[in-house]
């Protein structure tokens, strides 16, 4: 939604628009100015700028989100090993402290920029913008942004990515989409990770996780995989491949608008 044409007036907030116009004045000199602007407007502005930067270089940008320990870095390591001969990649790592994850990525021969957020529980568009100053996008096909491990806050901040991916690991439980709807609604793809643990953690039922995802009114695909055993990796890599191809063919004049996913299977 923009802040100019009135499309930001929703069923929910329409009554908050000041009756009698944008400015209303009382006898004591107090005036009310109607604004109706997204609170994160400054972040969204920088995110659009980042997205334009990715577009100009025909780079696909993917924001990986999950709780801590769901396997984001392990997924990246396995993905890099599978695709590094085909595509040129880089990773922006977000963590509160340490360069541990960036170190893990670099050991696989891929450039990694570490953002240490200190006490901040999420990445925002400004942090990613700063990181992009240290990353040469020329010649890259794909940039992964590994967000801070947190199922709450990262969902509220657009970074300028093309796709959001949310990981749900088997040990976390299959009802997380119902408990963290903001995060799972934001996802363009949901990966059920550590599927090798399904036989021992048999109270996690993938069909329940899928049902909870659908109850958030999202058609985002849900894949099961294990970065450890390689099971299910093909489906994920094929999805990624399609998205990279779509990013390469995306016209650059649509830079600031998030494009629709390359594939939008709508399960019934």
């Amino acid at each position, binding site marked *: 939604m923009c*802040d*100019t044409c009135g499309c*930001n007036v*929703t*069923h*929910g*907030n329409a009554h*908050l*628009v*000041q009756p009698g*116009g*944008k*400015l209303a*004045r009382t*006898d*004591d*000199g*107090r*005036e*009310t*100015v*109607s*604004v*109706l*602007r*997204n*609170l*994160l*407007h*400054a*972040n969204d*502005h920088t995110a659009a700028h980042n997205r334009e930067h990715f577009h100009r270089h025909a780079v696909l940008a993917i924001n990986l989100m999950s709780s801590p320990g769901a396997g984001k870095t392990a997924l990246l390591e396995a993905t890099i090993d599978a695709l590094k001969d085909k595509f040129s990649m880089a990773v922006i790592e977000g963590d509160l402290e340490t360069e541990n994850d960036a170190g893990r990525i670099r050991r696989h021969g891929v450039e990694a920029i570490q953002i240490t957020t200190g006490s*901040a*529980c*999420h990445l*925002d568009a400004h942090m990613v913008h700063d990181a992009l100053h240290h990353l040469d996008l020329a010649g890259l096909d794909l940039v992964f942004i590994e967000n801070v491990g947190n199922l*709450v*806050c990262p*969902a*509220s*901040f657009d970074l300028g990515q093309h796709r959001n991916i949310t990981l749900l690991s088997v040990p976390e439980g299959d009802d997380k*989409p*119902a*408990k963290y*709807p*903001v*995060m799972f*609604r934001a996802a363009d793809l949901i990966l059920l990770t550590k599927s090798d643990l399904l036989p021992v953690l048999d109270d996690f039922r993938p069909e329940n996780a899928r049902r*909870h995802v*659908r*109850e*958030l*009114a999202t058609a985002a695909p849900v894949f099961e995989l294990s970065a450890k055993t390689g099971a299910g990796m093909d489906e994920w890599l094929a999805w990624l491949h399609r998205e990279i191809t779509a990013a390469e063919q995306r016209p650059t004049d649509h830079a600031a608008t998030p494009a629709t996913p390359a594939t939008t299977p709508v399960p019934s």
Partner: protein
Amino acid sequence: MHELAVAQALIEQVGIVARQENADQILVIHVGIGPLSGVEAQLLEQAFPLAAAGSIAAAAGLVVEQLPVRVSCRQCGRVSDALPGQLVCGSCGDWHTTLVSGDELQLTRVELTRRGDGTTGAAPARAANDGVR
């Protein structure tokens, strides 16, 4: 706890409105928040004084209006109330719905007094969005 970052963004926006409207004082800030914005109203209220300290809104009140979650069904066409984690149609139960309210995170209104213009004269009805990056 990203509410402090949101409160800081709010103060930044109020500062822009204050400059555009030539405000002398910010009295009350109204925001509208839906549960699916990911921001907790109570935490935002707690973070607000920290973010407002030293700004033109330091003495301002914050009024948070919590907005309902409502969905429009693409199957039966009805609009119904929903829960944040259950966005299915309240009428036919289908999940093919579109959110019509509930993810808002907006600065809706600012109550202010203007610099040196007392109680007379109409304020220029400039769009609050003009001149913003």
